[in-house]
């Protein structure tokens, strides 16, 4: 596939510090994002790989507007995103959607599959009832869930199907960038492969850009074009995925490796994906 | 110690808040003691307004509150209109009797509930559990009001124990022993109601805390080591269940105080209950505020004691505190 040349997302000097403790207590400053910069071209997948606690999820939250960065700038297709004081994403940010880790908690257990997929349409656009239903149903089929099960509740689906539902819900508003936060965690190897295939297919048809967050380097290097290594709130290196193996072999400091374990089995399983 | 100091400051703050709350409610009061006095033709208007000024009722609320705080600090807790005396000694004389009731009922209830609760958790679904559960359910659905009336009826019918009051009207014998015997006889009915009233809640909590404790892996391990079952129940599991139970002990005083209020009125026990009721009917507001504050103080003390016990019993809080 041909990679895009324009920048979909350009993150410049993002900083975020969390403060622990109330005003009468001793405070702890915890710098989660430290002058972080990241570039994402259109039709591209960038994988952000790092140890747990290095700020990956905070980065995702900042990108979609659920957290407000202290400093820095996010350019979406060349336009800067304004951050509002409230914890509410701006309309521009609806172009970026997030798929959460552990899909079980990402779907309301009281809503049926079709209701879940319709929700963004209800909130984000002005659609008639019928139109909403049609869009949601077609999206459900796109991600490979049969319409027979549209009235089922999330706990009646398998883990992989739930992840498909989450993808359908994120895509129904037609975003251009999708952030995948540890979406492979807790899934079987074969299911991981199916989901990865689905994502690649969707990227092909819809022209999406992905930011894929994971701690499993081997897995994401199968679907990512570029790999960004993240450490203590910074992107320490962004490179083409072909160079990762070399980098790991030759990098002098051993500390990257502890967080990024290439799993032999995973590498083998996805050679076809 | 940080844990205890924090708790102490918190309770002081709570009491201040309670007093402020009652004073803001006081502000809403439509009538007052003096309004009713004004209706009496024998008292002149001038006297009423002089009295009103004397008691500081003509001043704004905040000023009155500050005055009250000063008097509380002096140990007076304001002036009672009806008795024309400082509130504190008035309340204290009655509060002692309330404390006697609840102070007896609280340990008694625990002494009865603890072995039954522990054993019914240990012997789940056996006869002791079922029996305990049945008794607890029956007591749970019987309001204390009914229990008190029933006991009173029994006392009046059978004359087994005195019906109401704190002492016999005609003292039969002199001497400390006779007095104590008389007091114990009078204590029987109200304490029984209080104990029976608090039993069901205690039983349920003890049982569920123990069931949780018995399911922890280390209790299972202890059983596999061959430690005698009763020893496991009463030493290991009870100790493990002690944290929720200690906080329950503080809280159980709250319901006990409430019930005691009612029982005292029904059984003519000269405690806070009748005093508070009279004060409400006579609009003697400072007595009401004083009694309510005192009940808050009791509860704060009870939670403080249970906190200290918790601190002693739970090594985790201690180490957290040192860190």
């Amino acid at each position, binding site marked *: 596939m041909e990679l895009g040349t324009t920048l979909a997302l350009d993150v410049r000097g993002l900083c975020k510090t969390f403060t622990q403790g109330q005003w009468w207590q001793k405070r702890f400053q915890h710098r989660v994002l430290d002058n972080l910069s990241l570039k994402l071209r259109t039709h591209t997948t960038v994988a952000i790989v790092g140890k747990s606690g290095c700020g990956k999820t905070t980065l995702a939250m900042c990108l*979609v507007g*659920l957290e407000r960065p202290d400093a820095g700038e996010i350019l979406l297709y060349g336009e800067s995103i304004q951050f509002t004081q409230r*914890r*509410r*994403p701006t309309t521009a*940010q609806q172009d970026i959607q*997030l798929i*959460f880790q*552990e899909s079980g*908690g*990402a779907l*309301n*257990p*009281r809503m049926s599959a079709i209701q*879940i997929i319709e*929700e963004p349409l209800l*909130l*984000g656009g002005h659609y008639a009832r019928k139109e909403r239903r049609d869009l949601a149903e077609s999206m459900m089929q796109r991600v490979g869930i049969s319409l027979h099960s549209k009235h089922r509740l999330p*706990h009646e689906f398998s883990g992989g199907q739930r992840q498909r539902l989450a993808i359908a819900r*994120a895509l129904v508003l037609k975003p251009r960038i999708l952030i995948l936060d540890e979406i492979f965690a807790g899934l079987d190897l074969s299911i991981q492969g199916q989901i990865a295939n689905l994502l690649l297919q969707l990227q092909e048809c819809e022209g999406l850009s992905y930011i894929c967050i994971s701690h499993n380097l081997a897995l994401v290097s199968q679907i990512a074009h570029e790999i960004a290594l993240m450490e203590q709130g910074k992107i320490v290196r962004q490179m083409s995925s072909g160079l990762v193996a070399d980098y790991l072999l030759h990098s002098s400091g051993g500390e990257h490796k502890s967080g990024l374990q290439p799993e032999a089995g995973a590498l083998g399983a996805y050679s076809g994906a | 110690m940080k844990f205890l100091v924090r708790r102490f400051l918190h309770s002081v703050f*709570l009491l201040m*808040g*309670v007093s402020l709350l*009652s004073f803001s*409610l*006081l502000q*809403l*009061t*439509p*009538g007052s003691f003096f309004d009713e006095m004004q209706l009496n033709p024998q008292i002149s208007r001038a006297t009423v307004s002089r009295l009103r000024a004397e008691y500081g009722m003509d001043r704004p609320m905040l000023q009155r509150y500050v005055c009250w705080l000063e008097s509380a600090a002096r140990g007076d807790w304001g002036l009672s209109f009806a008795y024309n005396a400082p509130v504190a000694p008035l309340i204290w004389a009655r509060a002692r009797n309330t404390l006697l009731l609840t102070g007896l009922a609280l340990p008694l209830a625990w002494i009865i509930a603890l072995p039954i609760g522990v054993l019914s958790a240990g012997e789940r679904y056996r006869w002791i559990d079922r029996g305990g559960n049945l008794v607890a359910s029956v007591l749970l*659905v*019987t*309001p204390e*009001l*009914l229990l008190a*009336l029933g006991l009173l*009826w029994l006392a*009046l*019918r059978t004359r087994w124990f005195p*019906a*109401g009051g704190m002492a016999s009207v005609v003292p039969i014998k002199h001497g400390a022993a006779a007095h104590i015997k008389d007091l114990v006889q009078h204590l029987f009915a109200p304490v029984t109601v209080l104990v029976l009233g608090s039993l069901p809640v205690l039983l349920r909590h003890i049982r569920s805390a123990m069931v949780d404790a018995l399911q922890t892996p280390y209790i299972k391990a202890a059983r596999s080591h061959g430690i005698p079952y009763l020893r496991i129940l009463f030493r290991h599991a009870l100790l493990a269940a002690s944290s929720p139970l200690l906080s329950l002990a503080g809280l159980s005083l*709250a*319901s006990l*105080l*409430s019930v005691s*209020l*009612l029982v005292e009125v*029904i059984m003519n026990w000269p405690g806070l209950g009748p005093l*508070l*009721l009279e004060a*409400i*009917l006579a*609009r003697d*507001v400072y007595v*009401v*505020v004083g*009694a*309510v504050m005192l*009940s*808050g103080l009791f509860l704060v003390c009870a939670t403080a004691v249970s906190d200290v016990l918790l601190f002693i019993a739970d090594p985790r809080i201690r180490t957290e505190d040192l860190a």
Partner: protein
Amino acid sequence: MRLLSKKSLLLMSLVAIHVPILFSGLFAPYDVAEQNRDFSFVPPSRIHFTDAHRTLHLRPSVCSLENSGFGQYHENRDRCFPIHFLIMGSPYLLFGVFKSNLHLFGVEAPAKIFLMGTDLYGRDVFSRFLYGGQLSLLTGILATALSLGFGVLFGTLAGYYGGWPDAVIMRIAELFLALPWLYLLFAVRAFLPLNLNAAAAFCLLVSVIGIVGWARPARLVRGIALSSRERHYVLAARLFGGSDSYLIRRHVLPDAYAVIITQAVLLIPQYVLAEVTLSFLGLGVGEPTPSWGNMLSTLQQYQVLVSYWWLAIPGAVLVPVFCSYLLLASELQPRRTAIDA
């Protein structure tokens, strides 16, 4: 036996308690204020299926009473009057709106039927018990609605927004929880007017009991809102542009429904008891309007307590009321389902 399953028994008992009280005008044979000064403290009427000649009749009857002085009554077995069903009697307002004079049962004029005896003024305790139940239960239900309303509102605000609203609301809730509830009830009641007509006293009782109890449900709901606002599906809905009110309505409150319903069922009997207690002590609704509490308050006189047991019936009925509400609560207790897993 489907009919005798636990659930249907529970349902039947709830219906048996509430329907006669709801339609008290229909079920009560007399008006609450109707006095029979010659018949004070009459024990419950005996219902006969035989007449003076010991012949059996299908239609039950009551015999006329004769006052033999000194509070003693005896039945005149020669003058028996059959009990009629669905007869016309004193007029009343059903639900306070519909005029009617139909009564479920009654006897002809000279005789009187007192299913639960009479009180000092010779008023029918059964009729007063039904009307009093209306007041007591309604107080419980309305006060529950009030305190749950406040509790859910403030609990959701505190839990959902966190930060300073949370701190302020929860500190105030702590004040309400810092006192034993009866003391708190008394304290609030103490500062409100004492001598009121029935309607005003009723409204006052409802608001006092309701407001005093808001803190506990508020705490519960806050805990739920606090955990559910961090759920991923709530964050996702926020990403799609859901407003705070939408998120609370659609995602946060449904998490709390089960707890709110259980709380309601637990609070109603508690608040009925609060009404009974306050009226018993003379701080609630006063005579001549009946309520279970003020009907019981005559029992504070030892002589009444010992001699006239039937006056304790309004208190004894609290036991089945409590029983059925508590059973209902345990039926409604949310079970661990796959949804929670």
